C-alpha cells in the first residue's frame, strides 16, 4: 500500500495524541515500500508538530494560519485538499474525534472516496484499503473495503493502533496556503471549552459515575470512594452534560478509552457508547439498582443495589 496520508489534529495548540496512533496505523498500512505523509492544520501547528516526525514518516506538513483557529469544516477541508493535490493517497487517516469524524466525512464526500468513521482498525483486503468497526453490540465486525479506484478515508478510534516510538527524519514543512483557506460560511462565535487537565488513560483505578448518582450530592459519595481508593474520577456523558463533572473525565466513544486494573461503575446503565470506553478494564465492579442494566454484562462483580446504600458500606470497609 504505497501512499497513506494522515490528518493530525490540534486542540487549542495541543496535539491530539490520537494523531500519533493514526501514524502508527498509517505506517503499518503503507508497509516497507509505501510513504506516510502527515498534515497538521491549525493555529500554532508549527510549534506543536515535532512529535509527528515519527520513524517512517516521509513528510510532515503544517498549515499554521490564523483563519484555522477554531474548527469549521470548509477551510480545513480546503487545506487538506490543497495538501493532497500534489500528494495523491490511497488512504487518508484521521482521529475519530468530533473534528476528525466531521472532516473525514466531508473529505470523503468531496473526493468521492470510501469512508469509514469510528474504525477499530485499518488494513488491506485483496489489495484494497479496508477499515473495520465492531458493532451490533460487539457481536459483528463489519469490514468495509474501498471500491476499485477509490481512496479510503478512515477515522480511527482510540486503541486502533499503537503510537510509534522514537523520532524520524522528515523535515517539518509549511504548506503554502495562498488561496487555499476559503472563505467560510460558518463562524465559531463563542467557545466554552475547558483545558484538559486529567489523563484517565494512565489511571490504575477509576471510579466512574453515571446519571444514577442523581446530582452533585450523590457525586460527592463517588468522589469519596475515589479518594479512599486513590482512584481517578470518571463519568458518563450524561453526568458531564448535566454539568456535574468536567468533560475531560468522560469515558466512552466520545470521551476517553480507559484500561485500568479496576473500574467501578456507579449508577451507569452501560450504553454501548460508554462500554466501548471501558471494556478492556481488567476488573469491573458495577453498582446499579436495575438488575437488567447492560453494564452488568461487562462486569466481573455485579451489585444490584442503591449506590447511596452500597457505597457507604464500601467506604466503611475501606476504613474511610
Amino acid at each position, binding site marked *: 500500500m504505497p501512499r497513506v496520508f494522515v490528518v493530525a489534529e490540534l486542540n487549542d495548540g495541543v496535539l491530539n495524541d490520537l494523531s500519533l496512533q493514526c501514524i502508527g496505523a498509517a505506517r503499518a498500512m503503507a508497509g516497507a515500500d509505501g510513504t506516510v505523509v502527515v498534515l497538521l492544520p491549525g493555529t500554532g501547528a508549527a510549534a506543536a508538530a515535532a512529535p509527528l516526525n515519527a520513524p517512517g514518516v516521509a513528510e510532515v506538513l503544517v498549515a499554521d494560519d490564523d483563519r484555522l483557529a477554531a474548527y469549521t469544516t470548509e477551510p480545513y477541508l480546503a487545506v487538506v485538499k490543497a495538501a493532497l493535490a500534489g500528494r495523491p493517497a490511497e488512504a487518508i487517516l484521521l482521529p475519530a474525534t468530533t473534528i476528525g469524524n466531521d472532516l473525514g466525512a466531508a473529505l470523503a464526500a468531496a473526493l468521492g472516496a470510501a469512508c469509514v468513521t469510528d474504525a477499530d482498525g485499518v488494513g488491506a483486503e485483496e489489495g484494497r484499503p479496508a477499515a473495520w468497526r465492531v458493532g451490533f453490540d460487539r457481536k459483528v465486525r463489519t469490514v468495509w473495503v474501498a471500491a476499485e479506484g477509490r481512496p479510503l478515508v478512515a477515522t480511527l478510534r482510540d486503541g486502533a493502533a499503537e503510537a510509534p516510538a522514537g523520532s524520524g527524519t522528515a523535515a517539518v514543512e509549511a504548506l503554502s496556503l495562498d488561496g487555499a483557506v476559503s472563505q467560510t460560511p460558518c463562524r465559531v462565535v463563542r467557545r466554552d471549552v475547558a483545558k484538559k487537565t486529567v489523563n484517565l488513560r494512565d489511571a490504575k483505578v477509576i471510579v466512574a459515575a453515571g446519571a444514577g448518582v442523581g446530582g452533585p450530592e450523590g457525586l460527592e459519595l463517588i468522589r469519596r470512594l475515589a479518594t479512599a481508593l486513590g482512584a481517578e474520577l470518571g463519568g458518563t456523558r450524561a453526568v458531564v452534560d448535566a454539568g456535574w463533572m468536567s468533560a475531560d473525565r468522560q469515558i466512552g466513544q466520545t470521551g476517553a478509552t480507559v484500561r485500568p486494573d479496576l473500574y467501578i461503575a456507579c449508577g451507569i446503565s452501560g450504553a454501548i457508547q460508554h462500554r466501548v470506553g471501558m471494556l478492556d478494564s481488567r476488573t469491573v465492579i458495577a453498582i446499579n439498582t436495575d*438488575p437488567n442494566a447492560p453494564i452488568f454484562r461487562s462486569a466481573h462483580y455485579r451489585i*444490584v443495589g*442503591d449506590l*447511596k*446504600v452500597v457505597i457507604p458500606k464500601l467506604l466503611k470497609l475501606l476504613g474511610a
Partner: protein
Amino acid sequence: MANYYTDNKDLAFIVERVVDWPAILALKEDFGSPDCPWSGPDEAKATFVEMLRDPVGEIAANRIAPRAEEVDDIGCRFDAGRVIFPDALERNLKDLRDAQLMGMTIPRRYGGLQFPETVYTAAIEIISQADASLMNFFGLQGGIAETIAQFASEELKERYLPRMSTGEFTGAMALTEPDAGSDLAAVQTRAKDASGGEGIAARQDPTTGQWTISGTKRFITNGCGDVILVLARSEDPEKKGGGRGLSFFLVEKNPRVRVRRIEHKLGIHGSPTCELYFDECPAWLIGARGMGLARYTAWLMLAARLAIGAQALGIAQAALAEAEAYARQREQFGRPIREMPQVAAMLADMRMLAEAARAVLYATSEIVDLHQGAEVRGLKEETRRYGRLAEALTPIAKYYTTEAANRICYDSLQVHGGNGFMQEYPIERLYRDVRITNIYEGTSQIQINWAIPRLVRGDLDDLMGALAAREYADADLARLHQEVLRSYEVYKSVIAWLREKDNSFREMTGPQVIDIFVEIYAAFLLLRHAELWDHKRAVAARFIRRLGPRVAMNRDLVLNARLETLEA
C-alpha cells in the same frame, strides 16, 4: 426501552385477546358514519392497542415513573391560599396534555378521543403503575367529564368539555363533607340565609335562575382544579329529606370557592386533598333537581370504582415487579431468596392474585362499557340489563382489586425484608399509596353493603349461570371447571340461607359472602383465559386448588357468625 403496556404481558393479553371489543364497539361506535374514525372493530382495536403502547405505556415508563420518587418526596404544598405542585408533577401534567391523553373518554365532538371505558381502565392502570398519585388527575378526569357529557346542558358541555379534553381544565368531585362520608345522604353544604342562620345549601335566585352554593366540603381530591362537581342540598329538608333532596352542580373555579387547607397524608403525596369552602358560590345545576345522589352520583360511581380498581391494580403491578426483581437478586444462605419455598410461594400468590383481580376488573369494565353504550343509544332493555350487572359488579370489582392490591403490596414489602421498610426502595411508597384505594370512592365495607342485596336478589345469577354452563374440551380444564362448580353450589346454598336473614346479618357476613362470590367468579374467568394462553393454566390451577377450601371456610364463618362486641 421499558414500556408499561408491552412489558405487562397479562394486561396485553386481556386487552388483545380477552375483551370483547366488537360487542362494545357495536354499541359505542357507528362504523361507516363520517364521525367514526375506523372502518370496523378490528381497526379500532388496533388503534387502542397502539395507543396504550405509545403514548400511554411509553410516557408512563420513561417519563412519569422516573419522577415518582421526587413527586412523593416533595409533595403538594399550601401557601397563601394556593396549592403548589411539585415541579415533577407539573411536568407530568404537561406530558399528559402534550400527549393529548386528558380527554380519553370525552366524545370526539368535544375534542376527546371517545375511547371505551375499558381502554381508559387499562390506561389508568398503566399510569398508576408509574405514579399512583398522578392517576387522580388522569383517572378522575374521565368520570367527571363523562357525567357532564351525559347529563349537563349543551351549553355546559360546550363550555367545559373541550377544555377538559385538552387538559387545560382538570376536574374534582366534591361529595364528602365533615359529617357526610360513607353516608352521602347526610350531605348539607349549608348556607347562611339572609338572617344569618343556617339555611338551605343550594339556593336559586328566583329571577335569574342562578344557583349559589355555600358550605364546606372535605377531602376533595384536586379541589384546586377548574371544574368541580358538587353534591349539595337543594330541596327543603322538611319536604324532601335525605338523598332525595340532593342535586348535582357544576362549579367553575372562582374566588367564591376557596381551598382552606390541604391534608398531610400517608400516601399519594402528588395528589392534593383539599378542604373547600363555598361562599355563595355561583353554580350550574346538572340534570334534574333531587336526582343528585340517586342518579348522577350513582352513575359517576360506576366509572369511578373502575378507575380506583385500576389504580390499585397498577400499584400492585409495580409492587409485584419490585418483589420479583428483588427476590432474584437478593441472596441469603447462599442462594437467591426467590428459591426459598416460602418466598417462592409468596411470589406465586402475588402474581396469581394480581391476575385474578385483573380478570375481574376488565370483565366488569366491559359490562360498564356495554351499559354506557346501551344508555347512549337509548336501548331501554339493554340499559336495564347491563345496568343491573354493572351496579352489582363494580362494587365487587373495586373491593376485590383494592384489597388484593393491598395484600400484594404487603407481601412485596415482606419479600424486601428490612430494605422494604426503607425509603430507598420504591415498595415503601407503593405500600403507602395503595392504602387509600380501599377507602376512597366508598370504603370496602360500603362496596360490600352495596353488593350484598344485589347478590341476594340474584342480579348476577344469569351471568354466573352462563359461566357455569360452559363446557371445556380440554380434560384438565374440564376437571378444574368441575371443582369450581362444586364451590358454586356452596355459594348458591349460602345465598339461599341468607335470604332468610335480616339486613344487619347480611351486612355482617358480607365480606365472607362477597369473597365466596368473587373468587368463584375469578375462577370461572381464569378458566376461560386458560383456553387462550397456556400460562393461565398454571394460574387457574393454583387459584382453583385453593378455591374449595377457602369457600368452605368462608361458608363456615358465615354460618357461625354472631354480632357481638368484645370491648371490655
